[in-house]
């Protein structure tokens, strides 16, 4: 039996009827037509599907779409405002923090959460903060650099 949900997705009110078992990641990709959040494992271990739910980073493969009813969801597509990249996106670009790019949308959302929790993290704190997100390409070093650069810019 489908259920009605209404949520704010990337700043816009949206309403849909969804199966109760529909995962948020499938709602975002299949129903809402987004391509930013990716499915890397379906078991909440890789973080490629990370989005913000009411301002907190969550892995959208382990959230049901119905759980977002009345709430706010922000994906990578909602980060850049008026064509201007978010500073974290800019930092990932400048520091070559991505190669194949598949983990990147989730990694950027997690990195934003990290700085929201701790605006001046040490390298060890950055690494700890990113441990829920897997990247197979970069060895993480440039991602660490990007988070450092974004933190420095925000603090400047």
């Amino acid at each position, binding site marked *: 039996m489908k259920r009605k949900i209404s949520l704010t997705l990337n700043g816009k009110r949206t309403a849909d009827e969804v*199966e109760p*078992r*529909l995962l948020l990641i*499938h709602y975002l*990709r*299949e129903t809402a037509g*987004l*391509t*930013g*959040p*990716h*499915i*890397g*494992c*379906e*078991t909440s*271990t*890789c973080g*490629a599907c990370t989005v913000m739910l009411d301002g907190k980073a969550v892995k959208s493969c382990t959230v049901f779409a119905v759980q977002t009813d009345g709430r706010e969801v922000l*994906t*990578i*597509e909602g*980060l*850049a405002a008026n064509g201007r*990249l978010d500073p974290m*996106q800019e930092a*990932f*670009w*400048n520091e*070559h923090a*991505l*190669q*194949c*790019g*598949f*983990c*990147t*949308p989730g990694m*950027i959302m997690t990195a934003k959460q990290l700085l929201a929790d701790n605006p001046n993290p040490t*390298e*060890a704190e*950055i*690494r*700890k903060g*990113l*441990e*829920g*997100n*897997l*990247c*197979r*390409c*970069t*060895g*993480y*070093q*440039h*991602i*660490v650099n990007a988070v450092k650069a974004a933190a420095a810019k925000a603090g400047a």
Partner: protein
Amino acid sequence: MATTTVKPDTLVGKKIRRREDPRLITGTATYVDDIKMPGMHHACIVRSPHAAARIKGINVKPALGRPGVVAVFTGADVKDAGSVPCVANLPGLRVPPHPMLAQDRVYFVGHPVAVVVATDRYIAADAADAVEVDYEETQAVADPEKALASGAPAVHPQWPDNTAFTFHQEGGDMNKAFAEADVIVKERIVSQRLVPNPMETRGVVADWRAAEKSLTLYSSSQAPHLLRSLLASIFGIPENRLRVVAPEVGGGFGCKIDVYAEDMLMTFVSQRINKPVKWVESRRENFTCTIHGRGHVDYYELAAKRDGTMLGLKLKIIQDLGAYMQLLTPAIPTLSVLMMPGLYRFKNISADVIGAFTNCVPTDAYRGAGRPEATHGIERMVDVLAAELKMDPAELRMKNFVRNDEFPFATATGLSYDSGNYALPLQTAMDTVGYGKLRSEQQEARKQGKLMGIGMSAYGEICAFGPTPATPTGGWESATVKIEPSGKVTIMTGASPHGQGEETTFAQIAADELGVDIDDVVVLHGDTSLVQYGIGTFGSRGTAIGGTALYYALQELKGKIKKFGATLLDSEDVSLAGGSVVHEASGKSVSFTEVAAAAYRPMKLPPNTQPGLVATHFWEPPNFTFPFGAHIVVTDVDPETGQVSIRRYVAVDDCGNIINPLLVAGQVHGGVAQGLGQALWEQAVYDDNGQLVSGEFTDYAMPRAHMMPWIESEHTVTPSPVNPLGVKGVGEAGTIGCSPAVVNSVVDALAHLGVRHLDMPLTPEKLWKVIQAGGRA
């Protein structure tokens, strides 16, 4: 030492942020799973839960009866629809038929048995669960050495010895080398099975148009043209009616070179239902059904003089092939043989490879593909020899390196090393870490009961695959450059990058050669209907071969630009300067855009010249390239827990000239991460029943950010003489250099306990047991 010359007005050699990134950091790139089509159906594959079983019956009715399910196909439907291809060949190779769905038996956990097609992916998944398969389990064998033992269960009943092939190669005079040796050290060294695990799993969308008898296939592939050719021959679809698109590809690391059962199966399904169909692999499927890498058990014997002069190397490789031959499966261990002498001068080698069938998913190319195994072997053996001779491992390496005046150096395995300065990276790495001081510190640490290790590797690799006679996929690469009438430049490369950044590096090369703004250059790839035939991206070949094809296409166009410029300036005495053609005597010039416009609307044609500014070049390399380098790793092992901490990681890599240092650093870091994963954490563990125990990210320990050390990356630059760019390739260097340096470091930390060798992965549990047992591995 030669150095890359960075002219102030050029882009090659500069750190330039990537041109492919805006779509990736905004989530707007199109990967296979982002493709949607009108009428598109979804497929879910029913897979064997057993490693070895007879299929007694399949009942598809419970699935077919469900709303939204349009078809279920089983082995009987695809019996005559062709075999998953293997393009590698060896004398006497046994290639089992490999239909896209199992026939009367299954051979590994995850073996595709049936495919369910439905209007929605949830419906397809539910219906796949409803398919009833009646299996009669048989005995499996999952370990290659056990598979070769007498009395082992036969993976393929027709070949009871489980031997797919044997391969022998020798060079020099091994008997003489061993007769003259003062010392012979022997070791059994395992390079364990690994799961490549690109973050994007595989995926396929097939769209058959019956009226046109044409197929468009989107596949997460590293080699779309190869996929097109093989699918065309399997299905009898004319190649000019078969379009393969590798859209954004989320990592490959070798595992996406292959043509897989699912590429064929989706083609088959789309032809049968006359609708587009999508299949996207789950992570569990990726673990169990996409090829694995490594899977070697190696037996080494190294002969040397008492003074450390290495004389000869014997090697027996037992290669775990898995149940089938994928695209290059049997060729991979032969690359290990080619690379077995490493960077050393000795000219006597003997190698035997035995390819063993097991009830596991096939092995094939994974980052390094045969070279990490070989490098791990020789670099471990040098340390074993150093321990035996009580020599410093750096000194032993320096003594045996190919010398600078010996290039091109003909190896005992039949290769010709192009250029090198092998001592320099090792010396540089030693200077960076402060090697002498570290050795003294280690002495002190041992007195205090601390376990500190200093390990090194000096690696060489074979890159830029490669001359066609030595590369089963074909070894050349292609590029087309189109200068549009407006002066904008479009490059189409036959290489199919998927994270390596050729949209940037190739634009740098073109902008420099043509003297145009890099923003006026676009690089396209991955679509066989757009791009001339190409080979693909693997074996660190993209820049060295694809970049060289581009370079020559650009030279052709520069010649034509000069001709059109000369005609416009009405003088033969012209030269190219920046983007313009200049008549130096008068100072008159015509701009790049003026020439481009004139080439497409010529009021007067230059002599023997036709309109247009388009050039295509196919380039066949005369040789491989041979990058090299040295990594030094300083470790501390916790005596209480066996946990390894990496204090310093210094990588000095020589990949020839560098187009973009930012991207090279990224390749080194990522390569090291995968090498470190093998050294310390990762292993595809099959139990005796052939069940993949480490088949999820929760069990298979891939490196995460907090597990990685800071990598201190440096370079020496020895240009390759094989191509005009002087580049060698860097995609696999980090992986190849890493694992022996890490293991040598940990063995060094435990050496005073009597430890001489340890097999990967060096988990805390393994090391704790060794420490508890007083060093008995």
